[in-house]
């Protein structure tokens, strides 16, 4: 094992003090002279034709500076993933909340009153909310022009779109021969699982300030985003501006969890600022935010064939994703589709994964992305099957889990597989095998997550005094980016952590970075930074070799000192080298690094989803819990959670524990209490009173187990760690409830009410049997 000086330690976060003192600047704190405030008019109908929009009264109201509708802006379709919406609804609205007009005024209240003064005549159209109904023949068609849509700048995959239907994405995976597999199985399980809609619940609502300078034709944007460069790409495309004329400036971000991955509301302050020539601020109210951002609901139709000894021989799955009115989550159907079966070696697999429009609000990515929904289904099924076959569910998992060299559903070979390790450790920690007592249940679940992708780049500048500017566009959204990346940079350069400074991104000054999604920052940005730091280090050593008159191959850097191997009396320091570089030797040191999270999916076969070759490293994990169910109320009390993640290499274990803590409570929240409820397409609970984010009283302490099966393709072996622990929690809860009281719930969430009603049915059935 190499000895690391910086990484692997629980270093304190570099951004903690400014946050603890209230000095951190978030988008809402950006104040500009002459600032105007924006509000948006949203459709009250889920599906309707727009017959007339009259803004004349609103325009005449004192304090109103601009009122915009589709008439006033570029009239082409746009979208980061799928270009299927306009800046403002044109002709038709497709969900409650679809944006029709925007107002800029001297204050929020004036803007809101002006919005209310806009008159719109609608002709209601038949709508469809259930995703399975939306797939059926004869369902109301939500996008008539569907097959003609183009992909957006954030999505490079082709999609099968079915014109005249609501299916905007379809991906297929075929491995082996499932029919044969089922024929050869001793037991075939078949059922349907449903996963509800939930909300990201970041405490900072979406906010954006845009400032357009008519002289230069450039717009500067501050926005609460996980993906500044995607915001730039989207705005550039939407407003026909070259990327040099769109600048996204960083602030702190108060949480994202997937909900801040797509530019959506930025277009309104930008359009209004371009119209007025004044800066425009828009902050979403919490009720607007809850009614505008959610996860895609899903239906999982699952068929699994097993041998009597528990070996899984065939899996067929129809995965149906509800994108809502627009397709900013069509990438869910793409997957990676081979992730859906879970971390199991299954010879025969057939999957169809659909993205389907409905007249609900558009869905966005959510922590864990495509994994929590199929994991709920597959892991529930494994427990059900184990019981029917009289097998131990942990052993059944152990039997089927991937190991080093296993071939996954896309035909790719796997390496650095920590799956069994995680499962073993978790089972032991929860005390698997013991009887937990009346109304108590234990469960243990395995899962995996696919490798991160997309491009990152970084620049490492050495200052005259030897300190380091790390220039990277990765946003700090709470996940510890700034600290972890600074640590990677310090380790590679051989300097102490406090010598590295990583300023907040600015798309004008930091090189491209695809953003904080899918655990990719530590790995992709981390790799770019490691390359850049190595480059800077090599330049520094070349100068040092020149100064010391030795070969640069004989030099090493330790704690900012440059040493000559086997000649301890000869040394210099990084500050001296940097000073020399700036005055007399070679010029300032600037290291550069680029990394592409290579995406073999781009080469996959469209009919079979097969790719072959060797995959980059996946992440593995296991989670266990003990619960107690109150049989009179159905209430589930979580007594203990154990959480293991194979993170490859823990760059900073303290930060990883924090990610596990947050991810697990988020998972518990969406399993037990949280649900975005709809009434005819309208969100029925758009506030924290009724959307039940867990409080400190619902939180649990957990046992963290960090497993390290080093990845050959991450920096220092790291695989990334932020999202995983949300993935299995719903399955863990469903199985633990079953273990406690014998009721099996196949549609989330597992509310007390649902558990009680299942208990009632169980009692009625057993009474009927007697």
């Amino acid at each position, binding site marked *: 094992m190499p000895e690391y000086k910086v990484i692997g330690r629980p270093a304190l*976060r570099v951004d903690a003090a400014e*946050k603890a003192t209230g000095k951190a*600047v978030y988008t809402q704190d950006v104040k500009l002279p002459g600032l105007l405030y924006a509000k948006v008019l949203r459709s009250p109908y889920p599906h309707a034709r727009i017959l007339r929009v009259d803004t004349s009264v609103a325009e005449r109201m004192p304090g109103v500076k601009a009122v915009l509708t589709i008439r006033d802006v570029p009239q082409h379709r746009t979208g980061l993933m799928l270009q299927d919406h306009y800046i403002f609804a044109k002709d038709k609205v497709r969900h409650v909340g679809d944006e029709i007009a925007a107002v800029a005024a001297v204050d929020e209240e004036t803007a809101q009153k002006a919005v209310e003064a806009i008159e719109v005549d609608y002709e209601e159209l038949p709508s469809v909310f259930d995703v399975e109904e939306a797939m059926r023949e004869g369902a109301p068609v939500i996008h008539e022009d569907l097959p003609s849509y183009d992909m957006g700048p954030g999505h490079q995959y082709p999609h099968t779109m079915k014109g005249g239907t609501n299916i905007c994405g379809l991906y297929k995976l075929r491995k082996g021969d499932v029919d044969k597999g089922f024929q050869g199985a001793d037991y075939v399980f078949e059922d349907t699982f449903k996963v509800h809609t939930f909300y990201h619940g970041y405490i900072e609502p979406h906010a954006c300030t845009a400032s357009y300078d008519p002289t230069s034709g450039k717009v500067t944007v501050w926005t609460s985003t996980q993906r500044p460069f995607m915001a730039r790409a989207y705005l550039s495309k939407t407003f026909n501006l070259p990327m040099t004329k769109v600048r996204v400036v960083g602030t702190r971000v108060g*949480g994202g969890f997937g909900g801040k991955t797509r530019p959506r509301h930025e277009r309104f302050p930008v359009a209004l600022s371009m119209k007025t020539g004044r800066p425009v601020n828009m902050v979403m109210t919490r009720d607007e935010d809850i009614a505008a951002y959610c996860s895609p609901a899903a239906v999982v139709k699952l068929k699994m064939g097993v041998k009597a000894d528990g070996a899984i021989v065939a899996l067929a799955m129809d995965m149906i994703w509800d994108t809502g009115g627009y397709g900013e989550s069509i990438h869910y159907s793409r997957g990676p589709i081979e992730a859906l079966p879970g971390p199991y070696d299954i010879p025969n697999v057939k999957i169809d994964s659909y993205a389907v429009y409905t007249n609900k609000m558009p869905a966005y990515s959510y922590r864990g992305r495509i994994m929590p929904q199929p994991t709920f289904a597959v892991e529930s099924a494994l427990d059900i099957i184990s019981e029917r076959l009289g097998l131990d569910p942990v052993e059944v998992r152990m039997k089927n889990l991937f190991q080093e060299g296993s071939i996954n559903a896309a035909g790719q070979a796997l390496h650095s597989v920590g799956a069994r390790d995680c499962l073993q450790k978790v089972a032991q920690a929860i005390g698997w095998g013991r009887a937990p007592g009346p109304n108590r249940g234990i469960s243990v679940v395995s899962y995996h997550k696919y490798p991160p992708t997309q491009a990152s780049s970084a620049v490492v500048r050495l200052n005259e005094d030897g300190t380091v500017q790390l220039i990277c566009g990765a946003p700090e959204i709470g996940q510890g980016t700034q600290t972890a990346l600074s640590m990677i940079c310090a380790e590679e350069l051989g300097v102490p952590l406090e010598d590295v400074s990583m300023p907040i991104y600015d798309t004008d000054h930091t090189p491209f970075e695809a953003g904080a999604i899918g655990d990719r920052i530590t790995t992709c940005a981390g790799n770019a930074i490691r390359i850049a730091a190595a480059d800077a280090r090599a330049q520094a050593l070349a100068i040092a070799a020149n100064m010391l008159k030795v070969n640069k191959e004989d030099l090493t850097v330790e704690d900012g000192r440059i040493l000559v191997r086997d000649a301890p009396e000869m040394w210099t320091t990084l500050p001296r080298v940097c000073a020399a570089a700036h005055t007399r030797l070679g010029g300032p040191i600037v290291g550069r690094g680029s990394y592409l999270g290579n995406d073999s999916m781009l080469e996959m076969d469209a009919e079979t989803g097969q790719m072959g070759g060797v995959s980059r490293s996946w992440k593995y994990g296991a989670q266990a819990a003990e619960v107690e169910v109150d049989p009179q109320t159905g209430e589930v009390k979580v007594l203990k959670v154990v959480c293991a993640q194979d993170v490859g290499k823990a760059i900073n274990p303290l930060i990883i524990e924090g990610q596990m803590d947050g991810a697990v409570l988020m998972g518990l929240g969406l399993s037990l209490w949280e649900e975005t409820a709809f009434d005819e397409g309208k969100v029925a609970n758009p506030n924290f009173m009724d959307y039940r984010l867990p409080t400190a009283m619902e939180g649990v302490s957990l046992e963290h187990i960090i497993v390290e099966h080093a990845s050959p393709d991450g920096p220092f072996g790291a695989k990334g760690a932020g999202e995983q622990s949300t993935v299995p929690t719903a399955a863990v809860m469903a199985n633990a409830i079953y273990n406690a009281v014998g009721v099996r719930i196949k549609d989330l969430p597992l509310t007390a009410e649902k558990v009680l009603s299942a208990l009632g049915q169980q009692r009625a059935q057993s009474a009927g049997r007697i």
Partner: protein
Amino acid sequence: MATRQQVQLNVNGEVYDLEVPPKRLLLDVLRDDLGLTGARRGCEDGFCGACTVLLDGKAVHSCSVLAVRAAGHQVLTIEGLAQNGKLHPIQEAFIQHGAIQCGYCTPGMILAARALLDVNPHPMEQDVRWGLTGNLCRCTGYVKIVEAVLAAASGQ
């Protein structure tokens, strides 16, 4: 224009004479008029607690307090917690225990913890959890926040 009312606010030990419309919220006065943006706007429904400040030592949601109502009372915001450049022990504990992630809930959380420890200097874990129910955090699962508050209480 609506009538404005004179209010004298004592914030972090400094006295401000302001003229505000009676409907103005304490949160907006702090953020927009006094530039004390450590009080954060999260829901304005009196639920999330991002806007928490102390009013005469008690935690309140400043989005649910009229500025005129705060007149004559002592307001403490996160900006006033550190003394002479030295962080308050609770701030220090939050940093040391990794209790801060996105940081949006942090100022409110720290102030709520301060009010809690003022009344109950030696709380049990459940007391801490109960005392923080007015402050939502989505990032940390509250685990390290609770640890930090317990550590601050025991002087670690």
